[in-house]
């Protein structure tokens, strides 16, 4: 805080004038350093709208050191003339004077003196004028008195060239009364306190304004993972559409349920070591519904149910191999088989969202594990039109117009459904997509490693917005 006395004096001065004051003028008239006035202005500004101060800059002319000397004692040439006696002076003596050299040449060009080179005893100088007008000194004196404006630009520049004048820029404030002007200063409160509320003193107080430009304090809170937030929304959509959640908490699956039951042949490339994670421990599954297994073997190797089958030697050993499931459709197969074992068929709508595993080459959009979203509807007489219709409704809820590229869909083959024991005429429509892909689109993430796994930057999790899929 600046000197309170000075602040108050300043306020009194501002009160007395109608228009405003220049801080430089105040400094001059109070005989204090300009910086002290600037300090007072700043501290008054911090108090709110007591005064308003507008920064301005002005240029003015000032004498240099040499200029001051001339203003006091006269120009060099005038001093040369006045130092020469009637009988003249040897040139060598004149040159010994401080102002001699400069004064001599100027006085010569003004024709105030003359040089007698042939004088006995060396060159000698004589005055040629008795009285002279020292214009340089007069001009400098005008500037010194603050009347520089009376000189012509050309004259000032001439003196500047002679290093007698210099132009300086002065910064100052133009101070006027503010909307809350007062000549007495009250200290502003920073915050409302319990005491103020209790005593009612807040009514009398002035409060320091807040800086609304600044950010608030970062809160110390917990966060949900963005992929899981999207999962929650997908669950919500399925539940809204009347779909029941399937138990997908079995990452390890037999090849039988993952492939064979879906009528995927045992030589299919997806069953290759390069695409699927096989288990060495526990390496094999050991319990299957025997009659169903037999029907699966038959439809693969011999056909049936209207199919020619694949006509190959179906091996139980292949079906027994345990794997990390490559899709959640393995669970759908288990659920549909279970449904087929009911006394009477009832239509179902099922969904799941859970992890699946692929032994793939990893890149920016592929990891060895990801989440699959799956929807399944089983009923009598479902048609392709129904599949298109339900997909449309589902993806509408997602707010996705071009959904064809995001997922897969279709009707399960009769070679899959009939061996399970589902009644003829029951069709099953199904679709699937990954959870990661729409999440990456939603949150604008290009590399899947920035979304899932232990290497993610927690800041991304902290900063992720809520998930509203339809907006």
């Amino acid at each position: 805080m600046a000197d309170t006395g000075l602040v108050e004096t300043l306020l009194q001065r501002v009160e007395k004038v109608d228009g405003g004051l220049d801080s430089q003028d105040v400094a001059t008239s109070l005989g204090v350093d300009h910086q002290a006035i600037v300090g007072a202005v700043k501290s008054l500004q911090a108090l709110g709208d007591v005064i308003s101060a507008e920064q301005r800059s002005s240029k003015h002319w000032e004498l240099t050191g040499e200029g001051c000397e001339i203003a006091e004692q006269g120009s060099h040439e005038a001093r040369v003339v006045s130092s020469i006696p009637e009988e003249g002076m040897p040139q060598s003596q004149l040159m010994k004077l401080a102002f001699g050299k400069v004064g001599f040449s100027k006085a010569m060009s003004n024709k105030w003196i003359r040089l007698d080179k042939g004088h006995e005893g060396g060159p000698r100088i004589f005055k040629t004028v008795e009285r002279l007008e020292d214009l340089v000194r007069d001009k400098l004196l005008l500037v010194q008195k603050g009347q520089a404006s009376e000189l012509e630009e050309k004259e000032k520049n001439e003196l500047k060239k002679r290093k007698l004048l210099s132009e300086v820029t002065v910064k100052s404030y133009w101070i006027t009364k503010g909307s809350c002007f007062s000549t007495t200063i009250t200290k502003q409160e920073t915050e409302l306190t319990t005491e103020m509320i209790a005593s009612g003193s807040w009514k009398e107080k002035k409060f320091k304004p807040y800086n609304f430009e600044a950010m608030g304090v970062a809160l110390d809170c917990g966060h949900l993972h963005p992929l899981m937030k999207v999962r929650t929304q997908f669950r919500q959509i399925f539940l809204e559409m009347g779909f029941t959640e399937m138990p997908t908490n079995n990452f390890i699956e037999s090849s039988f349920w993952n492939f064979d039951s879906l009528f995927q042949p045992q030589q299919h490339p997806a069953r290759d070591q390069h695409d699927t994670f096989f288990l060495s421990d526990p390496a094999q599954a050991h319990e299957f519904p025997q009659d169903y297994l037999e029907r699966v073997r038959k439809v693969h190797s011999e056909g049936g149910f209207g199919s020619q089958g694949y006509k190959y030697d179906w091996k139980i050993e292949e079906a027994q191999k345990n794997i990390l499931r490559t899709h959640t459709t393995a669970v759908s197969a288990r659920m549909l088989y279970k449904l087929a074992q009911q006394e009477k068929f009832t239509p179902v709508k099922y969904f799941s969202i859970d992890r699946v595993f692929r032994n793939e080459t990893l890149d920016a959009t592929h990891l060895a594990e990801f989440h699959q979203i799956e929807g399944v509807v089983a009923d009598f007489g479902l048609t392709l039109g129904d599949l298109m219709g339900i997909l449309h409704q589902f993806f509408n809820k997602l707010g996705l117009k071009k959904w064809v590229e995001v997922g897969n869909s279709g009707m399960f083959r009769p070679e899959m459904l009939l061996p399970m024991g589902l009644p003829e005429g029951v069709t099953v429509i199904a679709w699937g997509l990954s959870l990661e892909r729409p999440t990456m689109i939603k949150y604008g993430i290009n590399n899947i490693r920035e979304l899932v796994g232990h290497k993610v930057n927690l800041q991304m999790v902290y900063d992720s917005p809520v998930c509203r899929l339809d907006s």
Partner: protein
Amino acid sequence: MPTVSVKRDLLFHALGRTYTDEEFDELCFEFGLELDEITSEKDIISREQGDTKAEGASDVILYKIDVPANRYDLLCLEGLVRGLQVFKMEAPRYRRVSPASSEPQRLVITKETTAVRPHAVAAVLRNITFTQERYDSFIELQEKLHQNVCRKRTLVAIGTHDLDTISGPFTYTAKPPGDIRFKPLNQAKEYTAQELMSLYKTDSHLRHYLHIIEDEAVYPVIYDSNGIVLSMPPIINGDHSKISLNTKNVFIECTATDLTKAKIVLDMMVTMFCEYFCFLLWENILEPTGQYVHSDYPHSICNPQPFFGISESTEHIAQLLTKMCLRSEVMSDGEQIEVEIPPTRSDVIHACDIMEDAAMAYGFNNIPRTTPRTYTIANQLPLNKLSELLRQDLAAAGFTEALTFALCSQEDIADKLLKNISETRACRISNPKTAEFQVARTTLLSGLLKTVAANRKMPLPLRLFEISDVVLKDESKDVGARNNRRLCAVYYNKSPGFEVIHGLMDRVMQLLEIKPGQGNGYHIQAADDSTFFPGRCAEIFACGKSIGRLGVLHPDVINRFELTMPCSALDIDIEHFL
């Protein structure tokens, strides 16, 4: 899905028009294909080996198209064009013909082959004219088939020969490797089969196929009537009968362990190229059990009506199918359709495959959308419902949710947690490509600690949790393993913060409506666990059962996860609370 790479301009030329990339993408979609990538040889080389290597490579534009795994007829330019052009062209009808001037060729299969590679089928393409492009496509189709339907030559291997350099009848037999001797393709001298196997050990291409017969007592081999070796399937052909641009008649043999696949492959090789050639000769082939003559077209009869969900006349559906190269006729009952399946369409094995083509021809987007009337009541899986509710409240308690991998290294769940792998009940993966996928996790703790390690720059304290599944061996399950839903949380700061993690556990119990106390309540009791600092670990009991642990981690665990500060952790099984 296999990817087929074709030169764009050649493709457009064959299709008789050009497309923009978008139009072509759309066209692919209509036929169930996917335009995967637009690139050039130069691009591919520069991406894989750097710009300098790519200099001078061709910058002809290539389309990479994903085709369904069972559509072997789309694996080459010729097949793709036929697939994409069906609307415009008359369905080709393939015919097996006998040579006018000579006896049909024969391939005699001896019983010795049963021990190693029991099946073979063969055909002859006559009066053909190769251009460089057709020749390249012919070789490439062979390679594509080898990689896909032939399962890297294990199921089927294809050999193609210049028929005019050899003379039938041919013999497919099997002999001890030492007894087989010939000059293999592109070699200067003769080798025995044994020598060949060691010669090809270092061949970047062929070494992948050696294992198929390497350990067999006899190797398969095909001779002509003069004893010339045509091939030693599935490894290499003889040099003598190799085909060239000047070849006029091609002898194609497919040897196999799967006869169905062998027939499919032979059909593909023949039908894909017959369009260039005036006379296709597809001859009788002998196998030990009798004569294999390609059957006439299989016919399939189906009732299309229930499938579409729209009433479309049976006549119209028959027309659509015919356009898709599946010649169809409405049967006398007016409801059923009889469909002729060409040999190119080995993927058609059920009436539903025919109906899929009908839908494709109709245009999926032209099918009116309907809403199934299926009325059902939705249910959440109780375990997932509980997990969802707890997640919300753990975040409200100031903990941040992590999402870590279910697969990890053995070290992550054992050594780094100061545990012995044998006590983890971990399921082990037999074919991991890297150590990151050796086992399924048995705890969520290592994933959380790795997350902390990757985020050491973040302001302290770090409070993380995850509710997810671990996998444990379990003899009582059909697959011998089961998932187990866990809740795990860690607190990482300058001080261990046991009281924080303890407080979190109290909060979780409160959320689950379990009161402190013995019996039906919960309590903790000091426990020994190598993962935790001695004297700083407790076992958690709820309703009389042990449900998990909490404590301050052992400094060696901290170090092994490349952490520097104290850390406390909570790990419980939430399946007890269902």
